[in-house]
């Protein structure tokens, strides 16, 4: 308990020793973590929207008109393809009834065609938009399949958007982590360097390495934590008005967006924890390295 009191006192002193540098570190960490948080939320929302669109994506496969076809075997074969999430089988009569229902009052036009022209067909749902193209390729190689109908352009755009969104999120994550880590690392290094003589003396008169190191590690952790706290406040301040604006202008997206306050607060808690952990790891690494170098006997 006594040691903890001394360590906390020294941490407090360190925070104010280079207060301008500390403030700059907090601001940089805060801005980078805010960007990280907003990008992540944006990416999650985009993924949600894309998932909603993907769940509505259907590939329709029509078989050749041949009464000798073993439809059950073909269905099993298609069901076995890795891209298939679920599948419905429609007989020619089911398909015609469905079409008649859809056409409503104009369904009498179908009677003029004579025999039912619709073959056996499958309505296939995929796992993700990226699965559509490979699935279509596989279906087209099957001799029993006469035609495949799908929204090709939509699929390509959704896939591209999904890829871009994931990549942007990943790049922002790496950038934020690297920049925050470097800033915390440098601040603690400067703090250590400016007190190198003091550290050497402390070690020489019997202070343990952990006693010397802990205030510096806590300094880095707290700076990153304060930055993360500011970032979460900024996220809360920016996210809800932004989402409100989006809902007003694009009501169709309503169900895909994260609007639950508890979820956002949990996310902010995670972000603050992540910031503090990042600060702890960086300061621990620099402190251990520095203290090792100056306490090593010649």
């Amino acid at each position, binding site marked *: 308990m006594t*040691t903890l009191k001394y360590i906390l006192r020294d941490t407090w002193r360190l925070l104010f020793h280079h207060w301008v540098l500390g403030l700059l570190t907090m601001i940089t960490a805060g801005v980078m973590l805010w960007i990280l948080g907003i990008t992540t939320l944006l990416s999650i929302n985009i993924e949600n929207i894309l998932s909603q669109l993907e769940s509505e994506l259907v590939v329709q496969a029509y078989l050749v008109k041949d009464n000798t076809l073993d439809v059950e075997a073909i269905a099993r074969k298609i069901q076995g393809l890795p891209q298939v999430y679920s599948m419905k089988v429609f007989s020619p009569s089911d398909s015609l009834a469905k079409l008649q229902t859809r056409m409503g009052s104009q369904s009498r036009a179908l009677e003029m065609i004579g025999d039912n022209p619709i073959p056996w067909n499958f309505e296939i749902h995929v796992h993700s938009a990226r699965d559509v193209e490979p699935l279509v390729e596989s279906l087209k190689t099957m001799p029993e399949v006469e035609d495949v109908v799908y929204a090709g352009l939509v699929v390509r755009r959704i896939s591209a958007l999904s890829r871009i969104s994931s990549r942007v999120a990943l790049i922002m994550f790496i950038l934020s982590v690297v920049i925050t880590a470097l800033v915390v690392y440098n601040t603690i290094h400067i703090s250590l360097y400016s007190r190198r003589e003091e550290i050497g003396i402390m070690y020489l*008169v019997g202070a343990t390495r952990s006693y010397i190191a802990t205030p510096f590690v806590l300094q880095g952790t707290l700076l990153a934590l304060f930055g993360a706290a500011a970032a979460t406040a900024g996220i809360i301040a920016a996210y809800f008005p932004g989402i409100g604006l989006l809902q007003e202008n694009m009501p169709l997206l309503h169900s895909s967006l994260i609007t639950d306050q508890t979820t956002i607060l949990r996310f902010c808690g995670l972000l603050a924890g992540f910031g503090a952990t990042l600060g702890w790891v960086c300061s621990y690494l620099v402190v251990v390295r520095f203290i090792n170098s100056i306490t090593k006997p*010649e």
Partner: protein
Amino acid sequence: MNINFSGVSKIFEPDIAALIDINLNIEQGEFVYVIGQTGSGKSTLLRLITRELLPSRGVVAVGDFDLRRMRKVDIPYYRRDVGLVAQDFKLIPTLTVYENIAFVMEAMSVPKRIVADRTKDVINQVGLWRRRGMRPAQLSGGEQQRVAIARALANSPSLFIADEPTGNLDFRTATEVMKILLAINAAGVTVVMSTHNQAIVNSSRQRVVELENGRLVRDERGGSYSR
């Protein structure tokens, strides 16, 4: 705490021999002057005892510790039993006299009340209580040296290492510092002190160890500065 040097050499890179084949035994409670010209190896010998340096060859043993084989975690505990006074004082410039002394005990997790009592004791012992709130830069060389002595005394060490503690002081102040060191020794603490000061060595007639170009050339009990 007794000290034993057995065949100790210290060679600095690239090939500078600071100490060559030193064999020396210092018993608990002795007062030893280490003398010799500048560059003779006095400071190297003392820094081997504080484990700021490791020997290139041979064994330095202090108490139960073989300093080369000592584990990293044991070093601070060993140093708490070694009071160190350096020529350049090694005081922390941002701390006051009081804080410079107190932090040695704080590092050992000594409760605040005991730290306060003990700090007051040792500051009084070196006669600086009225200067307790000042920073090292506001003190004279002699006062800074007395603060360094007070700090070294704070943990009641059983070994006291003083590297030219009177080197920067006038004769009167140096004599005051010596009185303190002799009083510490009288309390049973082993004192090893390097010095150039002939008058001081000759005035108290203790054991004298003389180094010349890194070699031990004289080890005389009750000796004087000159051979």
